């Protein structure tokens, strides 16, 4: 992994996407000093926890701040008349 800080967030985002435990393309990653902020939508609470674990494996010396949101899958309110 490149140690240049300019490219570090993109490398982490790519590694999270290609990790079979995560495989989530929609994540946003930012690195500020020794903190890694991960945001975006995820489909389950388990995946959210896994993201923290995998990010910590990738950057053991960093604090992982998981700001991802679990997307609700409730029933819709109303139908939309299209025609």
């Amino acid at each position: 992994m490149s140690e240049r800080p300019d490219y570090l967030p993109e490398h982490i985002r790519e590694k999270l996407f290609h990790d079979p435990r995560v495989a989530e393309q929609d994540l946003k990653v930012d690195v500020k000093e020794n903190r890694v902020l991960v945001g975006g939508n995820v489909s389950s609470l388990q995946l959210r926890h896994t993201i923290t674990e995998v990010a910590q494996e990738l950057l053991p010396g960093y604090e992982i701040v998981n700001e991802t949101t679990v997307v609700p899958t409730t029933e819709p309110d109303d139908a939309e008349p299209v025609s």
Partner: protein
Amino acid sequence: MIRIAAVGDLHYGEGSQGILRPGLEHLPDRADLLLLAGDLTRRGKPEEVQILADELRGVPIPMIAVLGNHDYHAGREAEVRRVLEGAGVRVLEGEGTIVDVDGVRVAIAGTKGFGGGFRGAHGSDFGEPEMKAFVGHTKKVSDRLEQALTGLDAADLRIALLHYSPIEGTLEGERLEIYPFLGSYLMAEAVDNAGADLVLHGHAHHGTEKGRTAAGIPVRNVAQPLIRHAYNVYTLNGRHDVLPAAAGGIS
């Protein structure tokens, strides 16, 4: 009136058990069809789609799907398709099907689609073999979509079911830099040439739900992270003549 439930980008994988099922409880009372707009898995593995198939099995309304780019990642899309079909989901790629809903013939033409960009900023099948293959694939699937829709013109209603977006309008909210990877106008042109009552797609998680093609045909982005429900429902009035949308009173 026909009620279409639709959702895409469910991205099932390890730990997804039970995510959708509670939201499907009243689906048969609320919709006549369920359409799935691709990216049903995270990495295109049959064991991932099996989790979803187990939740869909027994849903007592017709279910029709296209696959998305994630569903191709493992190179096992044929197995993914078989798992879905084992649960009663018809999977379309460059083809169509007709469902009879209380005497109304509802036709669905489906394809994953592909990228390339939009009018004024579309890639060309020129230069390196990789670029020719990229744009050539979009042309091929768009041609098949047009043929499938045209072949269904005897139906009362026609719906195009895609994964990639046919228009820029439902991408608003996404970064402009990735538009060429989110869809192609060639699919919108195919739909406008053949005619349709509704176009559904996913893929653009940060886009916009509602848009329309150049000819005015309504387009809905049903990516689950965008609609933030188990599905959305759209109602259509059955009719025998598919009018150009601009003159067809489409809202």
